[in-house]
């Protein structure tokens, strides 16, 4: 089990020029991450997304570009779940249990099976939000500007007690 884009998200990003800057590629995980952050932002899950095959090879870690931030991604997942489920942040045992449920220090991505499942569902929901807010991008520069506008323009609704 690994991270996977929804079929619609893959189509949405299909026209983007993947190599706008010499030596730097706009990766599949960049597309997944765009969706994931929006899913985390609103702490919302898609119910039963139709997923593409995994874009990372079996047993692969995060690509180099994301390795410095892997702890952030794990933390954001835990934080979103605490918010989504309205868990008491002072309840030590509960927070610990939730963390243990989602993380697995032995897996390449640091995520348990449950953790990966939740990541994919957050990303799927994030894509729905993204699709409503912008047209399919054709260039990375246009996408980045539009995506930044999305974060600046909207303040997230109160979706539960923040962590």
């Amino acid at each position, binding site marked *: 089990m690994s991270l996977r*884009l929804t*079929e619609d998200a*893959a*189509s*949405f*990003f*299909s*026209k983007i020029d993947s190599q*706008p*800057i*010499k030596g*730097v590629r*706009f990766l599949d995980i*960049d597309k997944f*991450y765009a969706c994931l*952050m929006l899913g*985390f*932002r609103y702490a919302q899950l898609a119910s039963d997304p139709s997923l*593409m095959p995994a874009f990372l090879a079996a047993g692969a870690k995060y690509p180099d*570009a*994301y390795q*410095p*931030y892997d*702890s*952030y*991604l*794990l*933390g*954001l997942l*835990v*934080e979103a779940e*605490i918010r989504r489920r309205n868990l008491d*942040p*002072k*309840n*030590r045992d509960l*927070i*610990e249990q939730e*963390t*243990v449920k989602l*993380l697995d*220090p*032995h897996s390449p991505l*640091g995520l348990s099976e449950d953790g990966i499942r939740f990541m994919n569902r957050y990303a799927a929901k994030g894509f729905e939000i993204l699709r409503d807010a912008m047209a*399919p991008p054709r260039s*990375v*520069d*246009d996408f*980045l*500007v539009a*995506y*930044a*506008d999305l*974060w*600046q323009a909207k*303040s*997230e609704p109160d979706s539960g007690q*923040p*962590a």
Partner: protein
Amino acid sequence: MKIRITDWRCDNLRIGEGTEVFELGDPPARWSLVQMPNGLGKTSTMTLIRAVLGEEDLSVEKVRGFRANDTVESGTFELGLLIEGRGGGQAKHYRLTADFDFKAGTYRYSTLRAEERGGGHEPGLVLPSDLKHILKPEFIKLFVFDGELARDIRDLNKAAADHAIRTLYQLDDLSRLRQRIRDAVSKRQEALERTSGRTQKGVSRHQKIFDEAAGQLATLKKALAEKKSTRTKLKREQEGVRTQIEEHIARSGDLNDRRLKLSKDANDIASDIQTTTLAALIAYRNPATLSPTIRSRLTNLGTVLTKARLPKSVSSDFFDEIADEGECICGRPIGDAEREILKHRKEQYLAQDQISAIAAMKDRLNSSATSETSFSATCDTLHGKLEDRQANEKAMDRLKQEAEERGDEDMGPLTERESEINVELAALNIDIERLETADTAKQRSYQSTAKTNIPLAQKHLGECKATLDEVEASFRLSRQRDSLLDQLSRIEKKALAELREVIRTETNDRLKTLVKMEQLRVKRIDGALELESDKSSSKDDVSEGQSLSVAYAFLTALLSKAPFELPFIVDSPAVSLDLDVRKEVSKVIPTLFEQMIFFVISSEQAAFAESFYELEDTRFVTLSKTADGRIETHYGLDEFKRQSGEGIAE
């Protein structure tokens, strides 16, 4: 291969309680005459010999029918064989055994190969394989002679004569081979995914589908080549048009200065956009710089974990270690009960590696407040650069328009053509991508099919080829099967016809000496023996003696051609023959087989048993019942004659 019977042994069987052994010599005598009064189990012995040779299925009633009396619960029949392989060599002893449980009505066959290394009882019939295949109940009746067979071989409804020929000459193997071929082909065809095209029609249909797919792919490739060629031409034309536009602008000095500046600005802007896009992408990939909201959530979570003093410092490994020690750190001893509680409750604590992972995450979260450039600020810069690019493009358009307004008549058509080319190139690029993209997401967005996309058309063609190959292989297999079955069938028919004729001729040669009163002949073998005589072209009605003579003639003709030398065992061989026929039969019979065992009764002495008295290689066995009911076995001619005499006197 030569098969001979050396002895048999009965324990608690019909012949009587206790053990009775019949020894025919080792090697056995060529002729054995076993004289048993009626009721002592001749028929049972014949049945048991057939049963162990053929591993016959026996009903509960039949098993219990072998029982000596109601007091015995189990019994055994053992048959000794001496088998000499092809090309001579040391003959080997085999003992075929049937063990009976009379109470349960069950039985078990086994074989003892005493001369084999580690020899012992092995389940079932363990004989040389080329012998085993002929030892089928129907065939065994030929040489452990069943009197019924004498009639059956002339019964057109039973086809017993053909059965005998087919079994002995292994023609049944051809039938079995045909079935195995059918099964093997079916199995292989069932294993194929596509089962629709095992006929020529199916192959043609799949060939047509394949041809269409190949045609479709060729069409798409041709279209791609044409579009690429057009694109190359258009790019060349675009280059020419742009050069011409620049040349026209250059004719006006001030316009040219502006053009040069705009071109330089365009290059600078493009370079800035690249640099800023890269910076924006780097900021985008870091959640802490992506958005202040995200950053605050990261730091908040770090605070939550810190406040909750998570992760806990005690790990489950600690309780494991304590449980494995004999003593707690407080000094109290840890027994089984305490150990079990410790092992159970340790699950409430994290393992050390989980603690480390959470601690590492917490440390990173607490240091996530960053001074790095934010994604938002970089994108603002990028946005500005993109607007600059747009402004530059507009300024260049205005420049062209000014050149046209200054009376340069060529400028209008040139700029118009440049716009057209741009539109055409954009459309061509989309068409080319639609045709050649192998990216599944792009294919989805173009709603590509094998009719519009080359990689999908190639995949489809590959599938069609695989299907066609499978269907062709299946069809080829069907044709090969039919051809092979036909040839086997013809071989079987021809072989049977020729064998029938050989055996008919041999049978008739033997009948000349066996039946002299009325010359009987086999007119035809077609399932059964059809007889004729000098007096009648169709001779269905024959005497008991003639019937037996025909059977003997047929069997000896048949078995004389066999690749095996088999013993011949017969119950009361002469009892139904009149004295004249007996004399003839007894002259002929001794020469027919290499080993013959006759179960006789006293009345068969005259004109039959007595003909063996002078033959050296003969064993005489006589069974008698004493006054107190015991069975006595005697070997030798004297006792044989004495019993015969008594029998006759009776």
